[in-house]
């Protein structure tokens, strides 16, 4: 199922990635190559095969409820483009 330029634009928007108009065609081709490659899987008959959620057959390992992280606000904020009073600061996002 090949995608068109509109789909590429939409996915770029949802991912907050900038794709210039002159790159749309190339990106679309790349997407379609990947999709075609994955599409090869449909050659396999999967009737009566349950969907595989994880290749790891183990059940989920559970962690004990203990505080083992935190109290490192400085490190957490180290990569923030902007910070004030210990908060991350972003352009205003109001509903």
């Amino acid at each position, binding site marked *: 199922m090949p995608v068109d330029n509109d789909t590429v634009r939409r996915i770029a928007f949802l991912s907050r990635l900038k794709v210039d108009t002159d790159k749309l065609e190339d990106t679309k081709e790349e997407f379609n190559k990947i999709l075609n490659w994955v599409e090869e899987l449909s050659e396999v008959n999967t009737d009566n095969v349950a969907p595989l959620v*994880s290749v790891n057959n183990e059940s989920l390992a559970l*962690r004990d409820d203990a505080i083992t992280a935190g109290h490192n606000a400085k490190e957490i904020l180290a990569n923030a483009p902007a910070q004030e009073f210990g908060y991350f600061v*972003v352009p205003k996002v109001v509903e």
Partner: protein
Amino acid sequence: MTEYVITTEKGKWEIICGLEIHCQIISQSKIFSGASTEFGDDVNENVSFVDAGMPGMLPTLNKECVHQAVKTGLGLNAVINKYSEFSRKNYFYADLPQGYQITQFQYPIVGEGAIDIDLADGTSKTIRIERMHIEQDAGKSIHDMSPTKSFIDLNRAGVGLMEIVTRPDFRSPDEAGAFLKKLRSILRYLGTCDGNMDEGSMRCDVNVSVRPYGSDELRTRCEMKNVNSVKFVMQAIESEAKRHIDVYENGGTITQETRQFDPATQTTKVMRKKEFAHDYRYFPEPDLPPLILSDEFINKIRNELVELPDAKKARFIKELGLTAYDAAVICENKETADFFEKAAKGHDAKKVANWLMGDFFAMLNEKKLELKDSPVSAENLGSLVELITSNVINGKTAKDVFALMAETGENPEKIVEERGLKQVTDTGAIEKLIDDLLASAADNVAAYRGGKVGLFGWFVGQIMKQSQGKANPQVVNALLKKKLG
């Protein structure tokens, strides 16, 4: 049950409402990281690199959160799914550093359940639970510190949440209110969520639609996000239903949208539409394999369950003879129910209930005290009732004794003993008082015997006064009746 119908000049309407409730799980650390869940700590201090969405960091599921979710599911009389999966819900927002929320989508940990709610008219109704899943909370955005900037605190990011989804079974604001109170009571009994809506540890999304009364169609619904008190939920349902009716009666149509309830104006307004907001592109979480629970794990939790409000209420009615109303009030809160049970042990339970809900709560209110800080202990309240039922003191003296107990924290026996408040049941002594009174008030005696029976109360009052309130009123009544003829 009383039907809730909105009647206008043009017709009659009924409402259809369902709720989604987000409940913060009580645990020490977050659901997928080892950072603390403590509320109110310094900004960004309870954040791990997992919560901050740092590349390469992997989530690990907190056992306690799973335990709490299963416990809650059992408390909601629900199916526990031994197989569940985590999914990624993708959306872009500043307080969600990962760019996705780890939640459960197709295979939630808890399936269908049901809760019975008690309504004001004495009837009850079953509300069906569709599902409950676990997920991570987002951080907190603060918008009012600057006109151009938003401030983000990630302390809440990654705290475990249980999202409970009901069927659209509510037909009135009262039913939704009763449900939230009942749910909060159950969660507090279980100790899985503190249920504080004003602190945001329990948040409610409300779905409302209307239809002509008696029809079975389902019309377009609107959702109101994050309504933060029981009262506001009830107001939001009413106001949104009226808006729908108004639109329909004027020939308009309702479009499905997310709205916000404004408590100040008691109206709802549309939230700015997030473009593509509903394109969440869910897919199975690659960092977490499926969660498989053993029967042993589930049964262990089942065996740990405390007696829940409904069971306790039924027991108080059946074994202790309380009325349904008294039992419901006492059982709403586990601490109150425990206090009552302690106080009632070995004493007249109905009388203890009356004292608890009357003078006792009034005293706590007046002193602005929590139950746990009460100067009157459960044992002492029980002893006070015992002194009344065994006729050591009368009801009027008991009120005074109770006031002294609240003041001094002492036990009632000591107060009665030290202050000589035991009531006089010695008929000889009372008889003497009556004889003296009848001799000194010959006019009133004659008037009474001449037909002014209303004077009887005056005689009783005089004797009680003479005895400084200590005479047993039943004995006084009986003797007076005999002597006045």
